[in-house]
């Protein structure tokens, strides 16, 4: 079976580039809806802030693991 198409070069950076899609959308959703929630009910700012930060840290964790993964798995 002959090779028809091949991706060469720095596949790790392609992997990281794809890995930023999910957390990018996730962080945007978190803060976008957080701002909307604050606009609807400003008294709940403390509660919304805590949950925003929690969601942000979990999403950001995935982005940073994606950054490290090429170094861990080589190439």
């Amino acid at each position, binding site marked *: 079976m002959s090779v028809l198409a091949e991706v060469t070069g720095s596949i790790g950076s392609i992997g990281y580039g794809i890995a930023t899609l999910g957390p990018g959308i996730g962080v945007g959703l978190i803060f976008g809806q957080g701002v909307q929630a604050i606009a609807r009910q400003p008294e709940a700012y403390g509660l919304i802030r805590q949950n925003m930060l*929690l969601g942000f840290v979990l999403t950001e*964790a995935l982005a*940073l693991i994606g950054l490290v993964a090429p170094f861990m798995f080589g190439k």
Partner: protein
Amino acid sequence: MPAMSEKKIRPEDDARDFAGAAWSIPSYLLSGMALYGGAGWLLSKWTGVIVFTPIGLILGVALAVYLVYRKHGR
């Protein structure tokens, strides 16, 4: 030590706390990964079992998430 008037939180204090939290989160994640991932990497180099590095990394991430939860999420 400023007065502990926790009843009324002024908006500028809120903004400062939020900015402080938001900027410290990536640095907690990075340092947790560096510390425990580095420890796992050293351990795997010493023992030869390769799997300690990812374990250390994930452990660092989990600990950093827990730290943020305890500090800012309650």
